[in-house]
């Protein structure tokens, strides 16, 4: 089954694609960097790792000519998608960070943590409780976060997991073939590798994915 998968890890300069590649390798999957539209068009599983800012990530995707191919692959073809950290935030309509218009695949906005209540950025391991019916159902556990901003989904059905940092916030989202985590699955020890393995083992059945 694994050999039928074509796993693309989007590699843009601000991202931490190598860590994601290492994690996929450790799990026994052959992943490849995606740097042009053709790489996206072929992929059954697309991972968008994110560090840096929402604006830098959006700019990189546009500069690399990947924004439109991504929409084709994920929204129309139904390729499985996993966004990580800023890769979650840019799925929403808008981020407060440098007033950035994002992809808008999910309804809602991204806002900064309240610096009067908590230290910003949030940096460290936080307990995530997963909710809802989901093909990947990781046990509740501690995952590694590094974020100053967090998403506020308009449709609560999109919320897959929550954690608490000066109040509950969205730690993971899922809608159909679109998955994303605010925490770094590639840096969350065995809990993160378990979740990544769950995603890479999805076959896309029921999502209209090309198989």
């Amino acid at each position, binding site marked *: 089954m694994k050999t039928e998968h074509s796993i693309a890890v989007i590699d843009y300069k601000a991202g931490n694609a190598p860590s994601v590649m290492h994690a996929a390798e450790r799990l026994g999957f052959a992943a490849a960097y995606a740097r042009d539209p053709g790489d996206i068009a072929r992929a059954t599983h697309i991972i968008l790792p994110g560090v840096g800012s929402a604006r830098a990530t959006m700019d990189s995707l546009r500069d690399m000519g990947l924004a439109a191919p991504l929409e084709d692959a994920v929204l129309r073809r139904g390729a499985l998608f996993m966004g990580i950290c800023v890769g979650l935030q840019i799925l929403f309509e808008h981020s407060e960070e440098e007033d950035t218009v994002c992809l808008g695949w999910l309804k809602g906005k991204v806002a900064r943590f309240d610096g009067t209540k908590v230290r910003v950025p949030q940096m460290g391991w936080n307990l995530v409780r997963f909710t809802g019916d989901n093909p990947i159902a990781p046990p509740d556990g501690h995952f590694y976060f590094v974020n*100053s901003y967090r998403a506020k989904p308009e449709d609560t059905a999109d919320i897959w997991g929550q954690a608490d940092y000066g109040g509950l916030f969205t730690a993971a989202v899922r809608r159909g073939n679109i998955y994303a985590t605010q925490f770094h699955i590639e840096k969350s020890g065995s809990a993160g590798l378990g979740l990544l393995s769950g995603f890479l083992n999805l076959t896309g059945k029921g999502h209209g994915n090309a198989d």
Partner: protein
Amino acid sequence: MLTKRLIACFDIIGGRVTKAVQFQDNIDVAPAEELAREMYEAQIDELIFYDITASAEKRGIDIQTVAKVARMVFIPFTVGGGIKDLDGMYEALKAGAEKISVDSMAVRNPQIITLGAKAFGSQCVVLSVQVKREPKMPCGYEVYIDGARVATGLDALEWLRRGQELGAGEICVNSIDCDGTLQGYDYPLMRLAEKAVSVPLIASGGAGSPEHLKRLFTETDAQAAIISSMLYSPRLERNYSVRELKEYLASCGVPMRPFAQATTA
């Protein structure tokens, strides 16, 4: 809620972890990637890797060792030493590090903090500061550079505030007075630091017993503690496991990432 972090810190010379006392007399411990894997399997929360001779030898960071460690550990991994510019930062991130620690170089060229934060995000830039008690300074502490050898005349808190303004996403405060003494962290220093800046703080220097960690996490707002001697120094009669430290701290009411029984990956 967010848990407190235990960070294993490796001083690397020629690909091997060494252990110093007050920045001197390094003795050899183990190859970096071996000890990194061991610490990962012991469920340490984070790793920091300092190439401590890179600057003195006027070379870049030991990128091969960074890459070897990065393939082995799936927890956050910070590297420092010998990184002089954006290209050096990018090279280390590309090799699989998450964060770049800047220290002496940032004192000489503070703009590197801003450049790094703009290019890779402020969460990527950890400002590491070596400080020593100095009653003549406004805050009572002075910033040192170059392996604690050179006094800068900079007031420690002033530099912390400046570092945060310039874009550092996290600050590691190293007490030269406490380093390697095993007598506990400089708690008053951390209490000053927590009021001076709002980014997460890491305390470094002096941990010798679990009680020191408890004091740090209950008496100050430090988010993370660097431990090294306690975990692996051959100079100590007794080393502690990550698990016993975490279980002890949790029993004292400190929020910790619990030790997971079964690790499959």
